[in-house]
């Protein structure tokens, strides 16, 4: 069974991300929402496992001024959030 993990806290909450990343299985996806989108900044993203499937909500990234600073391919719309919710067997929220 695969899991969609959401995480909504900014990078100063290092322990939250560590617990989240430690709980992931290979086929899981991590979706960054709200202040979690700051983890897309290169310096933070570099600390996460390279194999990790990471996405972030475009709305939240755009609101925070991140779109010029992050990779376009990582950003998804709300309908894709729903798709991911369906494609994985469950959702775990990290906050």
């Amino acid at each position: 069974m695969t899991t969609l993990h959401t995480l909504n806290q900014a990078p100063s909450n290092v322990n939250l991300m560590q617990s989240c990343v430690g709980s992931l299985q290979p086929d899981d996806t991590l979706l960054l929402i709200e202040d979690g989108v700051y983890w897309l900044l290169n310096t933070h993203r570099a600390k996460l496992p390279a194999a990790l499937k990471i996405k972030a909500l475009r709305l939240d990234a755009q609101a925070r001024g991140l779109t010029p600073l992050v990779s376009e391919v990582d950003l998804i719309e709300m309908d894709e959030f729903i798709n991911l919710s369906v494609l994985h067997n469950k959702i775990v929220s990290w906050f």
Partner: protein
Amino acid sequence: MNSPKNILLMSRRAPYGSSAARDLLDIALTCSVFEQNVALLLLDDGVLQLLANQDPQVIQQKNLNSLQSSLSLYDIEKIYIDADALEHHGLSHSELHIPVTLLTKIEISQLIANSDIVLTV
């Protein structure tokens, strides 16, 4: 009648600073009333919820230790904690007031994978 689901209740918050620890127990007891298979998973500061010798009357709060002790009466026996978190706080099994199962990070990821529903508090 649906067959029982495996519901995992997860918390990484210390007790008393917020109501998370208590709210977690309220959900756990309700899951038990509905005859679901419920398990508790405590990570990070959440392992501090189980420290013995709590005396929250001095800050006018209810004692979580007593509530936690009653979990077994509701057939809630699956109480898992992150072994790394316990070590991170410099604590050992013997400083907790109820029996728990220590899990590695890999075991935690498997526990989550094998649950039907995960609720965070």
